[in-house]
């Protein structure tokens, strides 16, 4: 193991990424070589400094508003999918039955009837009140012409002269 080999393996040694024999060989070389030992200590110090700085930054982060915001987002999505949750329990046969009922209703209803404005017959008469003083009356209606007749039969009194 030479100083050049250690220089190339320096970062991997500090990160403990080297296999054990190589890691041991680098450590033996640095123990005997003050220059390589200094370089190792410098890199290790640099790593520790970076780690501390990163930890300090991570601890300084305010994450208190993150989870409430996430929870609100989940609620919104749940609201949008609520109808799906209601539909899902409906069995397939229920949907089929509803479709069949709609089809039967549509068939029985038939085509929409043509709307014709109701026209009164030319002789249409509506009797709102009818009384007779001394007569027996009948109301007759002729279906064909729509004519109405009030027929009175005088009874029980002497007709005026």
């Amino acid at each position, binding site marked *: 193991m030479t100083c050049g080999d250690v220089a190339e393996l320096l970062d991997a040694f500090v990160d403990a990424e080297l296999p054990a024999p190589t890691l041991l060989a680098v450590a033996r070389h640095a123990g005997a070589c003050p220059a390589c030992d200094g370089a190792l200590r410098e890199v290790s110090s640099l790593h520790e400094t970076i780690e501390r700085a990163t930890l300090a930054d991570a601890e300084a982060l305010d994450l208190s508003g993150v989870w409430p915001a996430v929870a609100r987002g989940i609620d919104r999505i749940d609201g949008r999918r609520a109808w799906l949750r209601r539909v899902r329990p409906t069995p397939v046969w229920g949907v089929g039955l509803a479709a069949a009922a709609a089809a039967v209703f549509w068939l029985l209803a038939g085509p929409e009837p043509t709307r014709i404005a109701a026209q009164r017959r030319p*002789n249409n*008469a509506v*009797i709102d009140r009818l*009384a007779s003083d001394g007569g027996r009356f009948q109301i007759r209606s002729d279906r064909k012409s729509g004519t109405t*007749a009030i027929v009175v*039969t005088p009874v029980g009194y002497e*007709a005026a002269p």
Partner: protein
Amino acid sequence: MRHVPPPVVLGIAAGALSVLAACALSQALEVQITSVHAAEHGGSDAELVALRPRLRRLVGYRSFRIVHRESRPCRWQIGEAFEIPGGRLLRVVPKTMRDQAVVMQVKLLDGERALIDTDVRLQNRGVMLFSVDQDSRVADGALVIMLKAED
């Protein structure tokens, strides 16, 4: 103020009254009353040939003859009495026009008595019948009164 001669004033007043009367009459309802004698035997008036099947269905006789006819403008809310053969009166009071129907009160009076007293709504230009059956005033048959109202 200028002095207007009395004849001119009278002329203007007469003219105004004439115009008012003409306006009143133009807003009147035309009521036509036709009295028909219905009997079991005999012929029918040619004028009633078209109406005969309808009269037969409604009144039930075979012979129909017009005995009296009168047509008169009737003002709204004002009663008009029509003489009917046999000494009776048909009193018509047009009330208003509603949905193309003439709303009116009709009374068939026999002296003090109202043989018929009715409130009807008759289609404008329509005809309805009033019949006095087995009428003692008629030797045989019935008296049929046809009422037509036209605005």
